[in-house]
């Protein structure tokens, strides 16, 4: 399905979404944290879009905001779409989990929590994944400092 048709269908569900196609080869949707779960479940359950394969979950630190980028693909229509969600709260960032929609998100969201500190509501097992439980700080954030281990050029 073309990006235009996708944009038409998706914007009919939730009006305040931002769509952009610049800077990326795929159609990108920017959604607010409150509407994230609703948008995701509709993207999966609607048969014209049928995005049932979540293949990449990337945590991002945009400087002022933290967020997650989801890459979705449909196994039947073979189109790809990107969903971005941002939150300004850097002290206690929380987002809704999508692990009840795609089970692969369980591990991916644990990784995002481990490296960025973003908590996910209703996640079945939100613990650190790679780093030990006693680790202090969130390494992939841009303001992370570690004099002993990080080599800065």
């Amino acid at each position, binding site marked *: 399905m073309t990006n235009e048709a996708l944009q038409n269908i998706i914007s009919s569900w939730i009006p305040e979404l931002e769509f952009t196609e*610049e*800077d*990326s*080869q*795929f159609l*990108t949707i920017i959604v607010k944290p409150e509407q994230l779960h609703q948008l995701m479940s509709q993207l999966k359950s609607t048969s014209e879009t049928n995005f*049932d*394969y*979540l*293949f*990449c979950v*990337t945590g*991002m*630190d945009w400087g002022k905001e933290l967020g997650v*980028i989801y*890459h979705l693909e449909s*196994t039947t229509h*073979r189109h790809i779409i*990107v969903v971005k969600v941002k939150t300004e709260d850097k002290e206690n960032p929380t987002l809704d989990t999508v692990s009840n929609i*795609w*089970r*692969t998100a*369980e*591990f*991916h969201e644990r*990784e995002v929590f481990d490296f960025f500190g973003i908590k996910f509501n209703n996640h079945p*097992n939100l613990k650190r*994944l*790679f*780093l*030990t439980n006693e680790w202090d700080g969130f*390494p*992939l954030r841009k303001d992370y400092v570690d004099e002993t281990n*990080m*080599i*800065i*050029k």
Partner: protein
Amino acid sequence: MDTTTVNNFKSEEYFINMGPQHPATHGVLRLLLTIDGEIIKKVEPDLGYIHRSIEKMCERDSYQQIVHLTDRMDYLSSHINNEAVCLTVENALQLEIPERVKVIRTIIGELTRIASHCLWWGVMGMDVGALTTYFYGFRDREMINDIFEETCGARLTMNYNIPGGLMFDIHPNFVKRTKEFVAHFKTKIPEYNRLLTGNVIFQKRMKGVGILTKEDAISFGASGPVARGSGYSCDVRKHHPYSALDKVTFKEALKTEGDSLSRYEVRIQEMWESLSIIEQLIDNIPEGEHKVATKAVIKLPKGEFYQKVETARGELGVFINSTGTKNPYRLKFRSPGFSNLSLLNHIAVGGKIGDLVASMATLDLVIPDIDR
């Protein structure tokens, strides 16, 4: 008290650690098993033993240096990992890659796939108890490693692909030795089948064990032979072809039963298909340059770029978010093993410990790929 702690300590249940040092291989993976007699109740992987913060390092390194980091991730498909990053950078810069480079990249990628599957087969046999298969698999992998050593200079971490092409041109013996290898290996796969695949004991260990349905495979984000064994057609070489893959014809190995035996047979079939791809390309390598000149300091334009490739384990994705500087702002590797590992708990619960070992061997995990 949260339910997870209570569940772990019921009185009849044992809590066993298949610790980071395995007598079998797979790398440093720690599995916490909760078993009741012989039946497994819960499998929880504990990762991070070989986490080297590759993604953080990539935010500091230049694009040519990043290529060197990628072959330490999934070291069994190192060429294909390099190719992934190089393709992302080249597509972002919109470079025109010569045909010669594309064909050579595809041939080397398929040789890497065969080498990885040879090692997987050897280790698979060892895990279920047939200790001789390890040596037969390595005997054939050594032939491929010798070809690579002559052309690229290294046997494991090759670094032959660079953004813009190849580091140097192929050695004059490359075509001849590859053709000899293909002829030799065609007689070996039937030997593998005679030794292991057709064996009654092996079939009983693998048939009906570790069943993964197609819906679960898609929901868990499985890719590669794991998903193809359950009937989900996901070969990146077919759906999003790259390099010279749109010029070759090959069949995608698909099976529908979803048990360990079908994942095993998918990989054996993939070895045949890789041999066929190499044969189609090896005689007609186009003449030309082996690389395109790029600037010494590569700067990607502002934007987000994503490239998928098919490694021996599954779909590897490289996501680069660049702000126009000489380092990426964020680089993420979508590793196939990560999603494949997440379904281990789902397929192992309710089975026996012997089944866990057999299923894990068919998932073909390489832990540095998961931990990055």
